[in-house]
């Protein structure tokens, strides 16, 4: 099976770089799978899972916000946050979940509510990925 070059970059540095067979990532409109030879494609990332299929197996990470950019030479994922499933700080995610839930109860609507909701979604995403993998 043919491979292509993927690089995943976050503000904390280069997260992953190498030849991969397939990558599946959550965009704003749903999960998108990329394989070698894909046309040029740009999409904004949502909050969800990043699955990288390598020759040796599959690696899974939690990803939130950023952009997926596919070009002929390589595929780049710029993610605001990205963590491998086994490196997720579960304690911290639990605390974030707790806090966001509390905030959602006191707030009724509006911008603050939306932000708390986003926070909750990020925390739940981390927790579900950490538990499943």
């Amino acid at each position, binding site marked *: 099976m043919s491979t292509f070059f993927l690089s995943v*970059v976050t503000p*904390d540095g280069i997260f992953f770089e190498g030849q991969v067979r397939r990558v599946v990532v959550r965009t704003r409109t749903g999960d998108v799978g990329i394989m070698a030879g894909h*046309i040029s494609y740009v999409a904004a990332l949502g909050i969800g899972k990043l699955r990288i299929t390598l020759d040796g197996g599959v690696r899974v990470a939690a990803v939130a916000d950023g952009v997926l950019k596919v070009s002929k030479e390589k595929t780049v994922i710029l993610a605001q946050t990205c963590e491998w499933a086994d490196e997720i700080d579960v304690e911290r995610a639990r605390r974030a979940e707790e806090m966001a839930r509390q905030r959602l109860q006191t707030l009724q609507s509006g911008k603050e509510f939306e932000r708390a909701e986003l926070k909750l979604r990020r925390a739940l995403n981390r927790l579900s990925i950490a538990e499943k993998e």
Partner: protein
Amino acid sequence: MAGANMKDIKRRIKSVGSTTQITNAMQLVASSKLRKAKERVERYRPFFEKLYQTMAEVAQENTDGMSVYTRRRKIKATLQIVIAGDRGLAGGYNANILKRAQADSEGRNVRVLAIGKKAVEYYQKRAYPIVAQYQGVGEELSISETTEIGEKIVALYRSGEIDEAIVYYTGFVSPLQQEPSSLTLLPLDLLGVKPQGRRTLTEYDPSPQAVFDSLVPTFITGTVYGAIVESFVSEQAARRTAMESATDNAQEMIDGLQLQFNRARQGAITQELTEIVAGAQALG
């Protein structure tokens, strides 16, 4: 009389000496933090460059410029995001950036988002409208904490409470030179940037417009993160320089005092000798 004077000088030498130990220790701490902070800036750079490039490319697709983030509107309220340190004793670091932001706020209807304890204290004392404040973020800052700041800025802009957002940070030029700088975050100005390479036919999901708009919060967050990281490097560099010169000055002072002390001691001995000789002569 001379004895009392000598005691005073001795005490001062001791006190200046212990100050030197503190400034010297602070200098060492700042040096090691500076090294770590510089590495963080290096790690951050590729992300920002790629993100900026992508934004510019997408912006090129949306030539109609109808995004809410790029459209210019009448400026009624300005948000100043001011990044200062949490601690003092860093030379002019805090004062310079606060002065810069202050000078820019003249004649504008300003709201402030204060980052760093020194900035928070400064604006609280002057009763500025503070929309949000963050303390103690510089050193252990993670991107998820900045997300909150970025989202706040975007939310204020979208709701029309602010018409522009400017971030004030200290740029790191070299370990000996840091420059208070400002950068306009919103409205975005990307049209001046030319994307590299040929334009290729690219599919945008769902549309260039939607991709652009959903990238803006990430871009703002990334820029604020970068500004905080860079300011932190500058703070450490400024502190190191300040502490280095404090240590040098203290050393000079100790040298001067030591000279005074030796003179006083010599004077006392001479006086005692004169007294003995005079006494012996009187006895005849």
